[in-house]
């Protein structure tokens, strides 16, 4: 049944391939986190009742919803479209959306950066998902974090690659980095 004369040889190929896939996943992420440009995004945990209970919490950002006035000229969006959102930020904090379109803008000013997302709803406003919407809560920290909701301001420190891919670097509470993610 086993197409290889030696079973161990087939097992070795399997183990090496699977390990390589896992290492590639980690490497891809570490490269983004270590070289991506940092920005700080204000966030609101989405469901205030079941917060921080499960293994992760859903986050929503100011930039998750984009007003029609900021859409690129003549652009029509549909659910699941890939979009490029241009942000303007002084330093790394408080980025504002200045435009959204289906193509990556050619030239950017020094205080601008592009983040890639996917449309989840297109109506009068555009809802966009950036891959930053899930924060895995450390074991035993859920209750503590939940008590802070409503009293404290949450924001996320994110890294954005040149291609516009985004990843969470850490969770900030009232402007101070409280949960920083080590690379390894």
């Amino acid at each position, binding site marked *: 049944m086993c197409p290889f004369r030696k079973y161990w040889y087939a097992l070795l190929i399997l183990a090496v391939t699977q390990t390589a896939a896992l290492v590639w996943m980690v490497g891809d992420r570490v490269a983004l986190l270590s070289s991506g440009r940092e920005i700080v995004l204000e966030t609101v945990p989405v469901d205030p009742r079941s917060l921080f209970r499960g293994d992760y919490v859903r986050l929503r950002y100011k930039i998750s919803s984009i007003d029609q006035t900021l859409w690129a000229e003549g652009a029509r969006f549909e659910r699941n479209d890939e979009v490029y959102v241009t942000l303007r930020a002084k330093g790394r904090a408080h980025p504002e959306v200045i435009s959204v379109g289906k193509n990556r803008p050619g030239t950017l000013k020094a205080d601008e950066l592009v983040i890639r997302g996917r449309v989840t709803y297109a109506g009068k406003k555009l809802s966009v998902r950036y891959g930053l919407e*899930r924060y895995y809560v450390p074991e035993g920290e859920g209750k503590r974090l939940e008590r802070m909701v409503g009293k404290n301001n949450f924001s996320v420190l994110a890294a954005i690659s040149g291609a516009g891919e985004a990843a969470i670097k850490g969770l900030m509470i009232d402007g101070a980095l409280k949960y920083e993610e080590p690379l390894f």
Partner: protein
Amino acid sequence: MFGYRKRLARDLDRWHERGWVERDHARAILDEVDESGLGLGLAPILAILAAVLLSFAAISFVAANWQDMSKLARLMLLFLALWGSYGLAWQLNERKMTFFSDAAVLLGLGIFGASIMLIAQMYHMEGNPPDAVLIWAAGAALAALLLGSKSALALAIILFTLWSGWESALTQEWHLVFLPVWVGLVLLAQRLDWRPALHLLMAAIIVWLFVQIINLRIDNAFEIITAVGLAVMATAYLAEAWIDRATGFAHAFFCYGMIIAFIGVLGWQLEDETSLGKLVLLATLTLGAILAAIFYGWRRGDNAVLWLGYGGFSIELLTLYFKTLGTLLDTSLFFLIAGLIVSGLAYFAWKLRQTQAGEAGGDI
């Protein structure tokens, strides 16, 4: 626990004494039983269950998101477990305990899936969640291909189906990529010569079809499902010889067509907007088709079709009962009619039995 092998060994001894079976052949038969795990009774089943439990242990370990251990240490622990499982599979295979080595491969695949989840968790990856399932599924399919592992194939079928359903739930578009993947899995099942996988694949394609139609909120969905089911039945019937040559599966194919068509026509009748006239027409056609199927099953001595027919008949009657309650028929009238139909069928079945018994009696 080893009952089957013992009984077989005893029978083979007797058959050898009567000169029906050569000594070498008897030994070859027993060897085959040992290798297949059939003679081991519960042990291989327990091994598979243990593999599943241990995989869940790995997944729960990941879900706890334990911070006292560094990311690298957690990852290394899972890598160690991954290689350990495959090492165990190798050792068990060396000892000719193929069924147990297959369980160890399944454990390795479970740990591979847990590792993917761990990485997604450690780096707060949201991305496109079905991608993670796809990587896991590909890992399982690779194991099935390289090692000829049956449990790996079963896992791959389940995971690819999950992946496809999730994709179409997110995009709300047809996820047609699944079809070539499914064909690939069919070829793999053929190669491993494992018939249960073909049944699992048929179940997978049925699930896929429904998930697509539900996610897409297609108009006339149930009409389409019914048509697909009838098409499958017609294909299985008309191309029976060809399908049997290629897969040995024409009969099961026909039965799956029946199930799909029946679910379609059932949903069609249950739809709110179905008018009374249409309902009566559909119900009459459905009951007629079911009776035809029962008759066909009886004529060909095909128990699978026969039982599907009986099951379908009961479900159809129940559906009509709920649908017409308080509208078309009075409840008691409904039961009266249903009762009369069933009595008629019982009489029909009794006659059949008598005929069959008569024929069987005549043969002896």
